[in-house]
């Protein structure tokens, strides 16, 4: 009896790391810039995430090689994917699906393809990779994710990828030494403003061993901020001022070029 209990205990101790993040490794990450300002000359920006893998206490040995997956998610937004069909010879939006609270920006960066890092079950559970990320759709009053090959889901991911807002890059993370890494996070020019969450997961031999979080903020500044705020909060006044500006420029044009 005692033997069995002992065996079970040993088995548990051996199995423990595969059940969840173990305490052997610790991730330390640092982002090059936590605040990205969208100014009038904004054409996109590349952020760099640096980090090291450290032993949790000095006596535990590290177990390289490691794999790293970084998931960056932008502010949530409800989007509609529409499909055109030919009706009476003309192409019309006939069918659509609503993606509820989908990230407006989604980057999945890793040092090699996520499918090689860990098994399919873990990928699904941890939502690693564009195929495994949860994108709930509205079905009547219910919400639910569909199969990966659902045409609307595939089109949604493809269109977002074309705009540079969704990406899965299996070479974006580089290990400089077996324990020091850097990840390039590209923010395109059309990046939405708001708070972004960065989730870093460390794997060793297919098992998640540690994780870390960070965040960044994309904000409009200066005149962009002012104009966007005015347009949303004081629509009528904003419209009146724009109309007035039109009249002013029109009048100015006629004065400058007056010939009679």
């Amino acid at each position, binding site marked *: 009896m005692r033997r069995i209990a002992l065996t079970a205990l040993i088995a548990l101790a051996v199995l423990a790391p595969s059940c969840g993040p173990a305490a052997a490794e610790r991730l330390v990450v640092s982002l090059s810039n936590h605040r990205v300002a*969208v*100014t*009038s*000359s*904004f*054409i996109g920006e590349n952020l760099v995430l640096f980090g090291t893998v450290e032993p949790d206490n000095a006596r535990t040995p590290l177990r390289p090689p490691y794999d790293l997956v970084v998931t960056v998610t932008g*502010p*949530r*937004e*409800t*989007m*509609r*994917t*529409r*499909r*055109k*069909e*030919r009706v009476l010879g*003309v*192409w*019309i*939006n006939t069918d*659509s699906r*609503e993606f509820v609270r989908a990230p407006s920006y989604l980057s999945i960066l890793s040092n090699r393809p996520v499918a090689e890092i860990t098994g399919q079950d873990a990928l699904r559970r941890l939502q690693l990779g564009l195929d495994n990320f949860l994108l709930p759709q509205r079905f009547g009053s219910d919400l639910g994710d569909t199969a990966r090959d659902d*045409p*609307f889901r595939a*089109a949604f991911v*493809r*269109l*977002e990828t074309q705009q540079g807002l969704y990406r899965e890059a299996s070479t974006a993370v580089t290990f400089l030494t077996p324990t020091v890494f850097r990840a390039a996070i590209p923010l395109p*020019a*059309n990046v*939405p403003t*708001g708070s972004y969450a960065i989730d870093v997961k460390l794997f060793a031999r297919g098992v998640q061993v540690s994780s870390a979080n960070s965040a960044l903020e994309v904000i*409009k500044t200066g*005149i*962009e*901020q002012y*104009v966007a705020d005015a*347009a949303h909060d004081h*629509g*009528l006044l*904003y*419209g*009146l*001022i*724009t*109309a007035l*500006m*039109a*009249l002013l*420029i*029109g*009048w*100015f*044009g*006629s004065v400058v*070029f*007056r010939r*009679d």
Partner: protein
Amino acid sequence: MQIYLPIADLPVNIFLVLGMGLAVGFISGMFGIGGGFLMTPLLIFIGISPAVAVASVASHIAASSFTGAISYWRKRALDVALALMLLSAGIVGTAVGVWLFTKLRELDQLDLMIGLSYVTLLTAVGGMMIWESVRAELRTRKGMPATLRRPGSHTWLHGLPFKLRFKRSKIYVSAIPVWAIGFIIGFIGAIMGIGGGFLLVPMLIYFLRVPTATVIGTSMVLTLVTMASATVMHAATNHLVDAMLALILMVGGVIGAQFGVRTGQKMRGERLRLLLGLLVFAVGLRFAYELVVSPDDLFSLRHVRAG
């Protein structure tokens, strides 16, 4: 040089947009039209969403028509009474148009509606203009005098009640067709992001027999007020007017228009109408092509709301 547009939420090349403003301004000065039917498709082409394009172009047209209206006012070539009459209906038309614009946007059919109205309007109006100017050209070749306005000839429109006299234009017509035209122009302008000058001028000439001397100036006043109110209404209801984009377009447009006017004055009327007809017709065909030909991508995305 790239500049970030705060409402359209994307960076554009400032010189490209300025150049577009100049080119469209040149054409609008040359033909005495707002040029919205060219500007809106151009903006959509460079990646600005149709809704933002339509709403922002309204203010651009307001600027260029104000420039035009001032110079016609100096020449006493506009009929204030007729313009006010058209306007009273035009504003109602604009309000209905902005309302429908909002509804169609919710139904995901705004792009289709914009496309369809462009095709029908532009091909019809362009075709009519080409036909009319070719006939006039042939008549002058044969040595026959061009008679656009036949004094004394009346249509059924002249039999309608509520007749009014417009002194400057020397016409005596019922208020009903005047209101109807004003309403249609205001409505179409709000939905399509066009001033409607290329529609209004022929309508005033053929239906109300407004003389050529006052027609362009009067149409510019109407365009100015409907587009200025469309700007305000679009801003208040849909929050889609990009002031930064509008500003660049206006500056280009106002400068371009001045050169266009000079070029236009050197050309004969029929030749000018034929060119404008061809241009309008070509833009219409371009839209028809887009609606009929299988799109590269059957799917498209739209933001519903944040959060």
